[in-house]
């Protein structure tokens, strides 16, 4: 067992390093990932150690980055692409949803595209516009992509390694406001399945389901609720496509209540899909409708308002109260 305490961003850095070391076909591409090491330093030191051919600063063009990554994958490479911030992925949207997602099926499986797209996402860091968005639902609707988001340094390390090893395109959403949170990482542990949810905390009265940055908020809410005598189970979904409905279902069959929490807008968000499917699966178990806590149907606000926009402890607890009141 090789356990280290690492911040989440550093765990990602070590995962990239390990992937570059173990497979010569792994390549990193993105804006400012070389000498600078990325604006969040996730690729720090990698160009120095693996050279410009494997850690490539790319021209400032996201469609170009993803489009050429597809070409590199066709040549047998395994590109790991960094999109600098969530709000800058959209110039690449066409290449992602029309080419990356569909080419394997289009070719009847003759083509596989093991491309990982890393996107630091979400708010809470006081940034200017376009630097705090949570666009996961806009990718989850699209068949051919897999979407994951870790909430801990250990998951950050292992899920990124698994994403790189997967032969499918994976959009890897990194909870940027948790980059500096530390946690234990065992780089020799045998990891669980990439797309399985985990019960992050057990409880009996209500289930909170979340992923990425909101897991921590939900765990805090569970602690706060405990003081009021409520036993909250927290499910860390880890994967948004596929969603591990079995684990949520098992939890809801126990608790009878579900609140889904994410930063992304509620309307057409992950919570909608989870509510719809869990209600179908657990119709006779649910004692309250599935409630959703998330962003409003409004552009992400200027930073000085983000605390009001983002689901915080109180809004989660409010939903818990509302659910328990049924």
């Amino acid at each position, binding site marked *: 067992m090789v356990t280290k305490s690492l911040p989440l961003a550093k765990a990602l850095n070590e995962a990239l390093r390990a992937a570059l070391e173990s497979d010569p076909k792994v390549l990193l591409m993105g804006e400012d990932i070389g000498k600078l090491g990325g604006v969040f330093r996730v690729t720090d030191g990698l160009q120095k150690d693996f050279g410009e*051919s494997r850690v*490539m600063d*790319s*021209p400032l*063009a996201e*469609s*170009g980055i*993803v*489009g*050429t*990554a*597809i*070409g*590199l*994958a*066709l*040549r*047998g*490479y395994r590109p790991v692409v960094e999109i600098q911030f969530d709000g800058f992925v959209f110039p690449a949207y*066409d*290449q992602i949803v*029309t*080419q990356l997602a*569909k*080419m*394997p*099926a*289009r*070719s*009847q*499986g*003759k*083509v*596989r595209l093991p491309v990982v797209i890393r996107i630091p996402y979400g708010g809470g860091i006081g940034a200017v516009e376009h630097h705090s968005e949570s666009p996961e639902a806009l990718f989850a609707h699209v*068949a*051919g992509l*897999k979407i994951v988001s870790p909430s801990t340094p250990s998951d950050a390390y292992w899920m990124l390694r698994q994403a790189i090893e*997967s*032969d*499918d395109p994976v959009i890897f959403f990194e909870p940027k406001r948790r980059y500096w949170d530390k946690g234990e990482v065992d780089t020799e542990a045998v990891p669980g399945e990439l*797309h399985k949810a985990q019960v992050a905390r057990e409880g009996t009265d209500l289930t909170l389901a979340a992923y990425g940055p909101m897991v921590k908020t939900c765990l805090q809410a569970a602690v706060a609720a405990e003081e009021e005598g409520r036993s909250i189970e927290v499910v860390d979904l880890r994967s948004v*496509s*596929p*969603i*591990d*409905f079995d684990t949520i279902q098992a939890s809801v069959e126990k608790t009878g209540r579900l609140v889904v929490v994410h930063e992304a807008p509620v309307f057409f968000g992950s919570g909608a899909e989870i509510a719809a499917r869990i209600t179908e699966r657990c119709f006779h178990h649910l004692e309250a409708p599935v409630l959703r806590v998330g962003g409003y149907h409004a552009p992400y606000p200027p930073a000085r308002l983000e605390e009001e926009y983002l689901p915080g402890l109180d809004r989660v607890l409010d939903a818990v109260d509302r659910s328990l009141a049924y």
Partner: protein
Amino acid sequence: MTTELVQLLTPEGRRVHHPEYAVDPSAAELRGLHRDMVLARRLDAEAVTLQRQGELALWPSLLGQEAAQIGSARALRPKDHAFPSYREHGVALVRNLDPAHLLSLFRGASNGSWDPAENNFHLYTLVIGSQALHATGYAMGVAKDGADTAVIGYFGDGASSQGDVAEAFTFGAVYDAPIVFFCQNNQWAISEPTERQTRVPLYRRAAGFGFPGVRVDGNDVLACLAVTRAALDHVRTGSGPMLVEAFTYRMGAHTTSDDPTKYRDEAEVEEWRAKDPILRLRRLLEREGHADEDWFAALDEEAETLGRRVREIVRTMPDPDPSVMFENVYADGHALVDEERARFAAYQESFADAGRSN
């Protein structure tokens, strides 16, 4: 324009000297080029007919572009890679792709069923311009491998307006990728003439991205061969991309769904008929005595055989099993797809049981 255009063969089938570009194909090679063009045209015509008969959903005809496609494709070495758009049936033929693949795509029986690695001929791309980036990325990979391989990326005059094509130019140039951007300027993007896309000849676009561009007579198969070969040699040296603009003409409708009488004059088409790429090479073959009547007759027979084969392929093509919808969406599986596949099967079963038809 004429001064900018590389031409090695006049419409009358006479050879022209060009200070920079030359080819000297053997008689057999010349006949080979002619054969390729005739077969491509025959395949194309048969597919158009089959579409009219309701056997295909759609067909984009290559009529008029045979020289651009055959000339460029014949310039490739076996290990080189071609990234087509959706009209490159002639390139497909040269690359030995079984026509069944193209036919199944345009029949609506597949979205592209071939393995790009088998013939180094990549999938058709219907979304305009996207493949320019794939080709460039592939070429970046080739450069990393230090391989002696070149890549050719096909696109149209209309596609030149897409941001993706410009980004491909940038990536290709910045990474010294061994890629030839091959633009078939057939002067129309559906109903829009090239003036809707650019004010100046397209080959000039390259210089602004720092690599050479050249315009070739796209109806002159020798010039297309010579220029593309030179371009491939150029990019193989590691000095980055090159752009070839093949100036040609789309003789037919955009696709079988299109009605060009709505937007262009028959006179223009007539004018280009006189520049027919196949006739032009035939005149040379005849004048220089590289092929006789028997040879042409045998070729016609071969073309008819191809036509029959195409009909046969299409008429006997089975519809895919519906379950393939769920296949190959993912390599490593996806819980939802598994669930939907199972439900779909059960649902199909229920009809078998209940006898209620779908």
